C-alpha cells in the first residue's frame, strides 16, 4: 500500500515515547538481556512500512539486514517525517530509537542532533557488533542526507 501524508504524521515515534522516557527506562536495565529485550520491544512499535517504498532509492546499503528509509516533508509545519523498516528485530529496535530521536523535527533541528552521543549514552555502540555499528551509521547517514537535501531547498 502506498503511504499517505497521514501515515507519516501518525507515526508515534518521536512523540511517544519521548527520548527522555527511553533514556529513563534504559537507565534501570542492568544486564544485556534486559537491554536487548527493551530494544526488541521498541522495534515492535515501528509503524507499518509502505510496500511501494521498498525500492532501491530507499534502501540502506552497508547493513547485514535489509533496511529501508523513506521520508515526507510536511510543508505546513516545515518538519521532516520518517519511516524505517528492517527484517531484523534488533535493527528495528535501533531504528525505533533513531526515530524517537529524529522524527518530526525540522531538517535543521535534525542535523543539529548529536545522534552518536545518544548512542554512546545508551551504551549501544559498545554493545553492537562493528558490522552492525556500520549499518547503523549508514542508516543515520541516509537520514542526515535527506535532511541536508531538504534544508538546502
Amino acid at each position, binding site marked *: 500500500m502506498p503511504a499517505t501524508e497521514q501515515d507519516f504524521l501518525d507515526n508515534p515515534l518521536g512523540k511517544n515515547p519521548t527520548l527522555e522516557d527511553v533514556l529513563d527506562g534504559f537507565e534501570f536495565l542492568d544486564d544485556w538481556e534486559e537491554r*536487548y529485550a527493551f530494544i526488541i520491544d521498541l522495534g515492535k512499535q515501528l509503524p507499518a512500512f509502505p510496500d511501494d517504498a521498498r525500492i532501491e532509492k530507499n534502501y540502506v546499503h552497508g547493513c547485514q539486514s535489509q533496511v529501508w528509509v523513506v521520508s515526507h516533508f510536511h510543508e505546513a509545519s516545515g518538519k521532516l517525517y520518517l519511516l524505517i523498516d528492517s527484517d531484523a528485530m534488533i535493527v528495528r529496535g535501533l531504528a525505533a530509537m533513531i526515530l524517537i530521536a529524529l522524527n518530526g523535527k525540522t531538517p535543521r533541528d535534525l542535523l543539529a542532533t548529536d545522534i552518536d552521543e545518544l548512542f554512546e549514552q545508551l551504551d549501544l555502540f559498545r554493545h553492537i*557488533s562493528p558490522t552492525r555499528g556500520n549499518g547503523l551509521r549508514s542508516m543515520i547517514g541516509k537520514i542526515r542526507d535527506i535532511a541536508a537535501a531538504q534544508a538546502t531547498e
Partner: protein
Amino acid sequence: MNDLSMANTATQTAFDVQAIRRDFPILSQQVNGKPLVYLDNGASAQKPLAVLDAMDRYYREMHSNVHRGAHTLGDRATAAFEGARETIRSFLNAGSTREIIWTKGTTEAINLVANGLAPKLKAGDEILVSHMEHHANIVPWQMVAERTGAKVVPIQVTPAGELDLESFDRLLNDRTRILAITHVSNVLGTINPVNELVGKAKARGVITLLDGAQAVPHFQPDVQALDCDFYVFSSHKLFGPTGIGVLYGKAALLEDMPPYQGGGEMIERVSFERTTWNVLPYKFEAGTPAIAEAVGLGAAIDYLNGLDRPAMEAAENALMARANQLVETVPGMSIIGTAKQKVPVMSFKIEGLHPSDIGTLLDQQGIAIRTGHHCAMPLMDFYGVPGTARASFAFYNTLDEVEQLFAALQKVQRLFA
C-alpha cells in the same frame, strides 16, 4: 583395567583437547564478560603458539630479503622460506616445489589461474562452477568470461546441499574448458565428490581447479591422487597467518601460462628490447614475498603434522554429531546443508529470527559465529534466505562449547518470545 576404559585412555592420550587449547593463547580470554567460545573458524582459524613463535623468531633472527644470496641473513631467510615451500609440497603430496606458488590467499590464487588460462578461452567456451561456490570462485571467472566471450555455467545443488551429479553430467560437454569447484562448501560443509568430478572432467580434456580453502583445515588432500590441475587454499583458515596462500598447479600448465604480475623476482632478464621470465615457481611471484607469513604457514603445517589427524577428525565429527543431536532443543531451528559427507560446519536458521539478530545476541554471550551471506549469494538465493547463521568448528573446540552454543540459542529464542 577393562577394554572400555583402556580405549578411553587411548583416546585421551591421542587427543587431549584441553592440552591442545593451551597451544592457542587467544582462546583463553573473556569476551563481553564470558569465556570466549570461538565458532567462526570457517571465516578464519586461530593460531597456535608454534606459528606465533616461528614468525617472531624469523623476524628476530633471520629476516632479510630472499633469493639475493649476498650474505648470511639472506641465506637463512631463503632457507626458511624455501623450507616452508617444501613443507607445503609434502602437505599436498605435490611432485615438486616448482608446482607450489605463494599467493596472497585463495582469492588471488584463483584470479591468477583465471588470468593465466584466459588466452586458452574463446567465445562460446564454458567454465563450469557450482551453485555453492564462494564468490572468489565465481567472480574471477566471470571477469575472464567477460574478456573472452566464454560463459560461466553453474552446476545445480540439491536441497540437502549436495552437488547435483546429474546436472554435472548434463552440463559437462564439448564446450567445457574449465571445471572450477570447491572441495568443501564454506556455507554447507559439504565435501564434494571431487575425485569423480575431476575424473570425468579429465576424460574430456577439461582443466580442473579445486578450491580447498575449507577442506584443508579438516583433512589433508593429495593432489597427485586427486589428479586435479590446480588446488588452492589460504593459510589463515589453516591456523597460519593472514596474507598468504597457496596455488598448486601442474608444472606443464604453469609453464604454459603467462605471468600474473610483473616486477622483481619473476624475471630472468630485463631489457627494453626483451624481458624473459624466471623459472617456476618464481615466474608467478613478483615482488618481495610474504616471507614471515610463509614461515608461519610452514609452522602451522608442522604443528598439524604433530597431531594425531585421525583422532582430530574423529573429535571434529563428535562435535558435529553433538550439535546435530541438540538441534531439536531449539524450537524452529533447522540446519541448511545436510549432506552425507560433511566437515563440522553448521549453517542454520531459526524461524522468525534474522541471522544478524542471532549473531548479535550470541556475541553478548561470548560466542562468535558468522552471520550473513558468507560470500555465497547464489546459494542464499537457492535456499531463499537473506543469510544464515553459521557455527564452524575446529579441532580445538570442545563438546562443552557445543552445548554452550545451544544453551545460548535457547536464551536468544526466549528473548524474542
